[in-house]
């Protein structure tokens, strides 16, 4: 499975010199050099910052849960023995920039989330989401929520849960001020964690994907995105295909 993920990543093959550098890095770690110091020394300050913010006390999905293991979560009691939660998914979008400085007018989500329990979500936005991505939409190319999730209450909860997990790094600044955040939904049932399917991705049978294949059929998915504008108002929210490499996606296990 890990090899499949690596194949999706499209990492280039390494030569002997690169392999030696990796060996040296591994040895340095074994000798006690901290990962953040090593990454800074290699010229990746942003990645070092990610490591610096690691908090071992933060709630994580237990080991042994496959791809989800160790990801950050936010829990919500949903009934006896059943807990639903969402997990942040790192966004990798073409056109997105991940800079230290916020785009003018943008308030980083985590900073904003400290002030507000939810992004701005008006009836107009809910109407749009339900019309375009509710279970009744006739657009077969659109991401579509299941009937159970095609309610104002459920959409609000999905967005609020995602908002709670957002970090400044998650807020990939798209052009013209929009930001995109993503999460996967899960349910913990009698101690076991399962995917919580929120909807179906749209069919895109004639679109050539980056891997050279043509399109993807509509599939059940637990992955969804929320798009926000420059004033942190939600613009839309819809389920997406986890295998769509040009949408926000799960990264492989480390």
């Amino acid at each position, binding site marked *: 499975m890990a090899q499949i993920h690596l194949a999706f990543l499209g990492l280039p093959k390494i030569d002997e010199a690169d392999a030696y550098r990796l060996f040296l890095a591994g040895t340095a770690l074994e000798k006690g050099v901290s990962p953040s110091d090593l990454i800074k020394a290699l010229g990746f300050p942003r990645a070092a910052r990610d490591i610096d913010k690691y908090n071992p006390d933060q709630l994580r999905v237990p080991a042994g849960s496959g791809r989800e293991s160790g990801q950050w979560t936010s829990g919500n009691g949903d009934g006896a023995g059943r807990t639903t939660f969402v997990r942040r998914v790192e966004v990798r979008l073409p056109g997105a920039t991940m800079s230290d400085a916020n785009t003018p007018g943008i308030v980083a989500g985590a900073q904003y989330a400290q002030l507000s329990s939810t992004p701005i979500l008006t*009836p107009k936005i809910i109407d749009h989401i339900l019309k375009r991505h509710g279970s009744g939409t006739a657009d077969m*190319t659109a991401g579509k929520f299941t009937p159970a999730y095609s309610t104002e209450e459920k959409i609000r909860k999905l967005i609020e849960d995602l908002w709670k997990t957002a970090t400044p790094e998650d807020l990939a600044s798209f052009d013209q001020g929009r930001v995109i955040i993503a999460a996967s939904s899960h349910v913990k049932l009698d101690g076991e964690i399962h995917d919580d399917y929120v909807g179906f991705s749209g069919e*895109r049978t004639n*679109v050539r994907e980056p891997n050279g294949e043509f399109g993807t059929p509509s599939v059940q998915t637990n992955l969804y995105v929320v798009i926000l504008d420059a004033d942190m108002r939600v613009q839309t929210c819809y389920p997406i295909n986890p295998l769509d490499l*040009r949408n926000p996606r799960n990264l492989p296990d480390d």
Partner: protein
Amino acid sequence: MQIKLKNITGIASPKVEHFDLHEDFGVAYLVEAGERVTLTLNQIACRSWLKQEHPHIVNIKWFDFNSVILYYDGIGAAIVSVANWHNIRLGVVYKLFVSNSYIFVSHDEESLYRSRPDELESNIISVFVRDGTFELGIRDLMDKDRDSWEFSELEAGYIFDNKFAFIAYASELFWVLDVSKRSWKKFPVPVALWSADVLSGDAEKAYGIFDNRWNHNHDRPPFELAVFDLVAETAWMQEFAPVGSALIAAGFSLSEIKFQPSSTGKIIVSDGKKAALLECRDCV
């Protein structure tokens, strides 16, 4: 208010959503029978093909009096007549309109958010000349106009004088794009725009119809009508009842009614059995 239903036409196609109705060109639709798809122009079968040859056609629009544009659920589109099948590249088509000089293509929000800045879909609305050559993407205009940063997806639009009048989620403005001048005009409207299904009109007035039946969570009536005054730059809601009465009088079943734009943005009404062009006039 005067309501006219023109070009009333029987539509017995099994794929009733795949048809277009034009004031001058008539009715065009696709019929699926077994493995074959047939293009029918004004009740005459013009050409047919195996479904597997072009499996994902999602819509048909009149292009001129003897040809149509077919577009797929991906990046494909083609101008098709009895004798020719000419593929053109329009990006991922969500809605499409045709004027005497241009093809206006809108791209849906999912295509927008998965696009690269240099891809057609990042424009939200792309304009092509009629041979398929790219002419203008509104991204160029959006970069200079923060009001347009609200755009996520086209809601509805229509053509007049080679201009494109439109409303787009989540903007609360009414927009008129002048391709030749590479500019647009806009004005705020005090009506709720975001669920308009169709918009039609001319240089002075436009009429928008809202089909609220999809939403069971609020108390809006099933249908609403808005009037936009492009000269006075304002808008207001109007009673839908005269439209409903005209449709019933013409034998349409209101419970089955659908509204869709024609290739030029005129309002097509249909109930699965017949279709017509709906015109509103002299509202005030």
